[in-house]
Each structure stands twice: as structure tokens, then as C-alpha cells.
């Protein structure tokens, strides 16, 4: 089975330095890594590859030139090839445009090395957080898709059965292949790279595809995206609260409950 994993390179730390003058993240010296949600997608792809002999795992990343590092991290874990989608013409792509680029890449891969059967994504990124790319990719490819998948109880060359974690329980959905699935934390425990894997990944050639290779529909990508970011700013900080007075737990409790009553929570 030919499997594709989509990964994004995102800030590795959650404490982001913000330039108050521009309202943007200070990118200088910022530690970057594989989006944590995508690590579960990589692991799930590798497990499927181990289960289904003759499988291969290709990793796609749309991003800046530096995102090559994220692809090498995936290769170090045992993925077979990495492809960076990079072109200045792709800048300003929103999440639907990103999915459009990934779709063009999946189609190109299918032509080059045989039909791709399954695309795995993380549930969302830890930066943009829209959680839309997997579903949008399914739509562009016109393949069935499922989001928030917590378990893949069954997979063979023609069909995949997934369990989807909903707010009120767990849905089971059957998807004939090819299909797109985005996975959540908890679906597996991602492995660590081996030393051998790391060495091989360092030497591996990461392909780079731009608009010349992808021939994506220019009316859907980059500056032609249907949505734009007008501006960003740090959120308003909460005004400082109060320390609940009192000596004993009972006194504190009485004060707190009185306040909660005033606020109509009780």
C-alpha cells in the first residue's frame, strides 16, 4: 500500500516570543519541529507499513525551505521518502489552498510510483490550529475522509475501518480506499528515531517540488487563497484577579461560594 503522510514544521515551544510592535511571532532563533499531532500520523503510517508487506510511506510537507528538517525527522523514523512543497508562489496559502497543493502532490506521486491508497494527517497543527487540512484534502482529491480518528481497527488493500472520537462517543466509519484520515493524539505511542535512522536521514535526498512540478490551479493557491489574515495581535491579557481571603478552608470556601452566587453560578 502506498501511504502518504502530511507533516508541517511548526514552533516546538508553546511559549512564543511576540513582537509587540508588529503583533507577530518573532521567528528569529525560534525552535521548530514536527507538529506534535503529525507525529501520530507518521507513527500510524509506519505501523500500517509493518502490517501490510510491500507498503511504502512518502512524507509531504508544504512550508519554507527549512521545513526540510521536519521531513528528515520523519525519514529518521523509517519513512521512505520526503518531498518538500516549496515555491514563493505558494506563500499566503490558507488552509484550503494548502490542501490544494497537497492534493496536487498526491496526484503527482500516484502517477510517479503507483496509486496512493491512504493519506494520513494530524488532527490539526499547533500553530494555525484550523483542523481543516485533512478534510479539505479529501475534498480536493474527491476521496472519502474521516477526522479525529482514534483507532484504525481494520485496514487492507481495499478498505479501512476507523473509529472517530466525537463529543458524545465514538463513531465507526468504513472508507473504501483511497481515503484521507486525520488522527488524534492517543491513537498510538510514537517511536523514537534510531541512531541508524538518524544517520540515514542526514544523507537522504529530500525532493523539492515547486509550481513547475505541481502545476496546481493558480486561482486556488498562494495570494489567490479565498481567505486572508488581515492582522495578528497578542490577545488582551486578563486583568489581575483576587486572592480569596480567609484563614481556614471553610472561610475561603464561604467567600468563594458567595462570589459564585453573586455571579449566578449557584
Amino acid at each position, binding site marked *: 500500500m502506498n501511504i502518504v503522510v502530511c507533516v508541517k514544521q511548526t514552533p516546538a515551544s508553546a511559549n512564543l516570543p511576540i513582537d509587540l510592535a508588529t503583533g507577530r511571532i518573532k521567528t528569529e532563533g525560534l525552535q521548530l519541529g514536527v507538529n506534535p499531532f503529525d507525529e501520530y500520523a507518521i507513527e500510524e503510517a509506519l505501523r500500517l507499513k509493518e502490517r501490510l508487506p510491500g507498503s511504502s510511506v512518502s512524507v509531504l510537507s508544504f512550508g519554507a525551505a527549512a521545513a526540510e528538517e521536519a521531513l528528515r525527522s520523519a525519514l529518521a523514523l523509517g519513512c521512505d521518502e520526503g518531498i518538500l512543497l516549496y515555491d514563493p508562489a505558494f506563500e499566503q496559502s490558507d488552509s484550503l489552498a494548502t490542501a490544494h497543493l497537497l492534493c496536487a502532490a498526491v496526484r503527482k506521486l500516484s502517477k510517479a510510483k503507483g496509486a496512493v491508497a491512504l493519506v494520513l494527517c494530524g488532527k490539526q497543527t499547533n500553530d494555525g490550529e484550523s483542523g*481543516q487540512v485533512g478534510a479539505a484534502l479529501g475534498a480536493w482529491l474527491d476521496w472519502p475522509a474521516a477526522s479525529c480518528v482514534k483507532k484504525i481497527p481494520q485496514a487492507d488493500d481495499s478498505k479501512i475501518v476507523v473509529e472517530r472520537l466525537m463529543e458524545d462517543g465514538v*463513531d465507526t466509519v468504513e472508507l473504501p480506499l483511497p481515503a484521507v484520515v486525520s488522527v488524534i493524539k492517543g491513537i498510538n505511542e510514537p517511536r523514537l528515531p534510531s541512531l541508524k535512522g538518524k544517520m540515514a536521514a542526514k544523507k537522504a535526498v529530500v525532493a523539492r517540488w515547486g509550481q513547475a512540478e505541481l502545476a496546481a490551479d493558480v*486561482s486556488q493557491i498562494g495570494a489567490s487563497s479565498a481567505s486572508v489574515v488581515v492582522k495578528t495581535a497578542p490577545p488582551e491579557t486578563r486583568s489581575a484577579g483576587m486572592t480569596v481571603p480567609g484563614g481556614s478552608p471553610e472561610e475561603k470556601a464561604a467567600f468563594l*461560594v458567595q462570589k459564585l452566587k453573586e455571579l449566578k453560578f449557584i
Partner: protein
Amino acid sequence: MAENPGKGIWCVAELRHGALVPTIFELLSAARSLDQVSKEGVCAVVLGGPGKTAPAAKEIASRGAQRVFVLEHALLDGFLEEAYARALKDLIEREKPSKILLPASVAGRSLAARLAVACRAGLLGDVTAVALDSSGNLEALRPCYGGNLLATVAVRRGLQMATVRPMAFPRAAQASSSGEVVAAPVDPSSWGLRGRFAGFAPEESKEIDLSSAEKIVSGGRGLGSAKGFELIRDLAHALGAAVGASRAVVDSGWIAYRHQVGLTGRAVRPKLYVACGISGQVQHLAGMSSSDVIVAINSDPQCPMMKLANFAVQGDLHQIIPAVVAEIKKQRG
């Protein structure tokens, strides 16, 4: 570029196995705030299996939707994004709305993305505020980078769509007059549906769902052990709140993952968030810092959660929580 000559603001309701998710009333509030400017009318859509939508449609029509379109079909009984997107697309092509709001739930997010691609629409994801810009285009605020930044995003072409974070808007109340319910045709013959909804296992515990809860009581490592969650459940019960947790305790196996609040768990926005024995690391704050009122119960007055809280209660939670529960019971008589 595609023009958007449509008219009307639509809100898509989520019906989960017969139960109407209250996010639709939040969408109606958001839609009505837009409609005060654009004056194009507010409609709703509800999808479900045959004979399943009537009570929901009636309820929605009584809370401010001028028309409620009902799409019923056996293929819409369980949520399958392909089927839902095709049914909605057919209706959109007939009725031509200008804007569509959906809940930013698991189903809502994936449906919105699929529908937006199918309609070549613009989609703003997981927004917490909506407005119209000077050209009348949909503009919205969305938290990103784990709550570190607030982005203003806007749609520039096509049908304008957004998914709205649960609890970001008040729920629309009963309106003075009721809207009409319109049964719309569903014809799946051209859909080419491939996926199949195979089953549903409901959450057994009957706990209040986190993402649409008005009150949440969360526990962290300060509970000391899985047994500590009995205290959290007591307090949640006394307040009528849902139960949340930090990742530290989920990873320790004290409570199931679906309770996790934060960057890698659920983003919540309740009116009241009570954090017990949670230090308030950024990844946790990313999921809850926009709660209206935050109460922290913690032995360490210097930890970030205590500094952020509206009401910081310093002390051992094993003493404070039972005292609070007793006080609530006393007040209720």
C-alpha cells in the same frame, strides 16, 4: 475570481443521534449580529435521518431562524462528511446564501472544509468573533499559536463560511414569532457516495460534554492520585459542571483522554472554569484561558493559574474542595 451574489446567512445545526447540539443557538446569535448590518435574513439547516429532525427544526425556528431547511434521508442518519457536504451543496446551489456558519465541532469542522472546497468558498476556522468588513465581507477573530496570538481573518471571494468555536456566543433566546420549517429535497443519485457510517458507541458515563459546557471543574497533578478525581466529580456535581483534566493526569492514566483540556486536548470556553491542582502551563492555558471566570485552587500562590485566576484560592485542595462542596450544599439548603 468567483463572485458571491448570494443572499442570506445560514446556520448549520448539528443533530447527534437525535439530540440537537445547542451550538446552533450560538450560531443564530452570531448570525443575527451580522444580519443587523447586512439585513439579508437568517436561516438554518438541519440534516438527519427520516423522521428525525422535526422537534429540532421546530425548536430552531422558534429561536430566531426565519426559515429552517430540513434535509432528511437515510444516508444522513449518521454523520458522514461526504454525504452531508453533498446534500448541503445541492441546497446551497438552489437557495444561494451568502454566508454559512457551522459549529467548530469534530463534525462541523470536517463538514465545513469539505463543503468549502466543493463550493469554492472561503472558510475561516474556529472563530470566536464575527463581523463584516467595510466591503461587507465576513471577518472574524481566531486564536492561534496556542492562544499566543489572535488573528483577524477575512474571506475575499466566493461563498463566505466560518466554523464558530462552541461557547463563543450567547445562545439565542425564544423569538417573538416562529420561523417556517421547509422540507428540502434530497437526491443522492449523483453523490457517488463511498464511505459508510457503520455504528456509534455513545459515551457511557452520561457526563456533561466538555466543549459545550457552561461550567467546567478540572483536576491536575495536585490531586495526587486517580482517587483525587472523586473530589473533582463531587464539586462538578454540586455545580452542575463538566469534568476536565490536565495532560499530566491523562498521561498518568487517572482519567480518559476525552477530558483533556489544552493544546493537545479540547479547547473550551465555559462561563466558569475551576482549575484544581493545575499549575497553568501554556499548553493547558491554550485550551481554556478565554473562559469568562476562572477559579484556581492551588497550594502554590505563584503558579501561572493562580496569577491568571479571577479568584485564587490558596490551600490544599483536599481540604478546600470538600469545604466548597459543603458550603454549596448549605447555601442550597
